[in-house]
């Protein structure tokens, strides 16, 4: 039996992966479940295991090759199987789960599937040929390079979808005409890291495709701050709780009551999930990453505090699990520690909402006609208008405010 080994999809936004190392040589015997390769995604390194036993007959992608998700990278088969269909060595695209997706909407969030098999119902940004290269004509490539046009962001109108000169020219015309010679002074061209490229691509995609609406509110954190101090000072053996942990807990509870904000937008469909996995944005030297605290709604404040500290540590060492960086259903991005007032964030696709959080500031407020001070925190909900509307957003955000302003509810 011939078993095709394909580049697995380790999450919603994974489009390609790089083979770091083959652990089997052609001709080796392979048992089902045996680890056969290490691959690198833009988030982490993972191992691929064999789904079937047999002889590791052929590699169709070499170490260091970057190929699209779903591309056949190796063949495991019986010794006598005819592999002439794979003869030319060209890696071809297997029928990807993405192509099957429309008829089979996922009922569970992606993380359930991740790691074992390519996640189903995942939007696949279209282009790129089966060998992972963007199909573009030589003159289109030259023009794109000369004018810093990202070919991966263009769709081709030439034969077989090839990006041709007119496509690059159209992209140039559509972009800001700041292509003129730069102002005097030294210009350094900085090679974008893989993570930087991923951020650029995904954030551009989000701003391009998801119509954001924004709702802001100041949350009085006086009581929450008091509770936090009590927990940290007075309760023995309780994990140290941060303001962010409380926000995550409040968001999870509010999400459970407003599940529309716990949706993914995939293939023109809204997939509302019952599992709540709140992501926390973690700044890294080379960019940022927003892994998920899995099953957030069923975690206590203390468990959230533990989980978030653990995630931050592993994010920095690159040891996140696929489910953590692909399974998120909502994100909290907190820049309060930098002393800034607020953050209006960009939604992480395919999620449909994100909460931007600023610093806690002692601010004069008017209460019952008197001026008092309060510890206010500015929050901004960015949400995808294709999925929810402003009135829903306001209720969802008010729920978070209510929870944080009556923080005892975070403990139950």
């Amino acid at each position, binding site marked *: 039996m011939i078993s095709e080994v394909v580049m697995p999809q380790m999450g919603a936004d994974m489009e390609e992966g790089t083979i770091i190392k083959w652990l089997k040589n052609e001709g080796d015997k392979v048992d089902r479940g045996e680890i056969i390769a290490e691959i690198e995604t833009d988030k982490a390194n993972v191992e691929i295991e064999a789904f079937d036993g047999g002889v590791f007959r052929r590699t169709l992608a070499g170490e260091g090759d970057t190929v699209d998700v779903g591309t056949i990278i190796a063949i495991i088969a019986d010794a006598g199987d005819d592999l002439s269909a794979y003869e030319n060595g060209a890696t071809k695209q297997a029928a990807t789960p993405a192509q099957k997706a429309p008829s089979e909407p996922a009922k569970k969030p992606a993380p359930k599937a991740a790691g074992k098999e390519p996640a189903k119902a995942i939007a696949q940004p279209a282009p790129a040929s089966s060998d992972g290269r963007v199909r573009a*004509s030589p*003159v289109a490539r*030259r023009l794109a390079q000369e004018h810093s046009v990202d070919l991966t962001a263009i769709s081709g109108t030439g034969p077989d979808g090839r990006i*041709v*000169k007119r496509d690059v020219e159209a992209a140039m015309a559509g972009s800001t005409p700041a292509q003129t010679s730069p102002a005097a002074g030294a210009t350094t061209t900085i090679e974008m890291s893989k993570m930087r490229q991923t951020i650029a691509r995904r954030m551009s995609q989000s701003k391009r495709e998801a119509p954001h609406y924004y709702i802001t509110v100041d949350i009085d954190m006086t009581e929450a701050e008091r509770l936090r101090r009590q927990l940290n000072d007075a309760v023995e053996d309780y994990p140290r709780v941060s303001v962010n942990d409380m926000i995550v807990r409040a968001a999870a509870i509010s999400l459970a009551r407003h599940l529309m904000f716990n949706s993914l937008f995939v293939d023109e469909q809204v997939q509302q999930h019952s599992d709540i996995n709140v992501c926390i944005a973690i700044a890294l030297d080379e960019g940022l990453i927003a892994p998920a605290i899995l099953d957030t709604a069923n975690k206590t404040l203390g468990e959230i505090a533990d989980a978030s500290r653990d995630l931050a540590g592993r994010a920095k060492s690159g040891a996140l699990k696929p489910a953590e960086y692909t399974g998120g259903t909502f994100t909290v991005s907190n820049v309060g520690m930098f002393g800034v007032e607020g953050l209006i964030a960009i939604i992480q696709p395919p999620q449909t909402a994100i909460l931007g959080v600023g610093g806690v500031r002692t601010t004069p407020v008017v209460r019952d006609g008197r001026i008092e001070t309060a510890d206010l925190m500015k929050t901004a909900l960015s949400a995808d208008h294709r999925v929810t509307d402003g009135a829903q957003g306001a209720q969802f955000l008010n729920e978070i405010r209510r929870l944080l302003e009556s923080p005892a509810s975070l403990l139950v």
Partner: protein
Amino acid sequence: MAEMSFRGALRLTLQEELQADENVILMGEDIGAYGGSYSVTKGLFDEFGPERVMDTPISESVVVGAGIGAAMGGLRPIVELMTINFSLLALDQIVNNAAKLSYMSAGQIHVPMVIRMASGAGSQLSSQHSQSLEGWYAHIPGIKVVVPYTPRDARGLLKTAFNEQNPVIFIEHTALYARKGEVPDEDYAIPFGQAEVMREGADVTLIGYSGSVYQTLGAADILEEAGREADVINLRTLRPLDVDTIVASVRKTHRAVVIEDDWKFGGFAGEIAAIIMEEAFDDLDGPVARVCGADVPMPYAKALEQSALPNPQQIADAALALF
């Protein structure tokens, strides 16, 4: 300007050279009393006599070999091999002797000889007599290969051939002999290695030579109706090849189709495509396309023969597929 047939332009030029230089001689099968299988030499036998317009035995190897000897000895022979199909019998003389002697003698010996031959298909002469093998000769260093399309080309290029110090293969497509065109009245010569842009357009470059230029111009008309303007290049010589004109055009249009009656596999069209790839890769907006003769020995049946040769619609389709 006078209107003249391709055949007439050749005959006039041969006549002038025979008149101008007594060292010029013509040799070939039936070129004398009969006037030539394609009537190119008609009347020259009567004017210049059997010593200068010589009928030869049916042995192409002998004809070319004698021509080489005459050229080495100081004459300027113009040898006619009737058709390129028969030139295969003289391949050894052409490739191993004519092409090599100047090199092997370190330039002490020259072979100033013109070898004329008809080429091409279209007259139901079946597979042995319908070939377009000029690309074979273009493969050989030491030989120049001339492929005129217009009567003006025929006259101007034959003039230049007379002044060459080493062998020139002069290809005459049989479908062109009767075709008429303007030929300048004044004395002129067309240098080798200068293609002519027969028609200008910004969208695609169509490259043909000899008889195929006719089909190519037809394709340009079809393309115009489809809203695409074609540069049509008539190569005029395969060796030397006017790479500059080809590359300049491709730089402008970013697309190229090469047209050739000969078979595609291993043919000269592939050479042009490779040169474009080497010289203008970053200007290409798509792969270079080739429209060539069908990969079969030429069929005898008329309909099959026509379908085995490039036609304007096929060329236009290949061009449109690049957009």
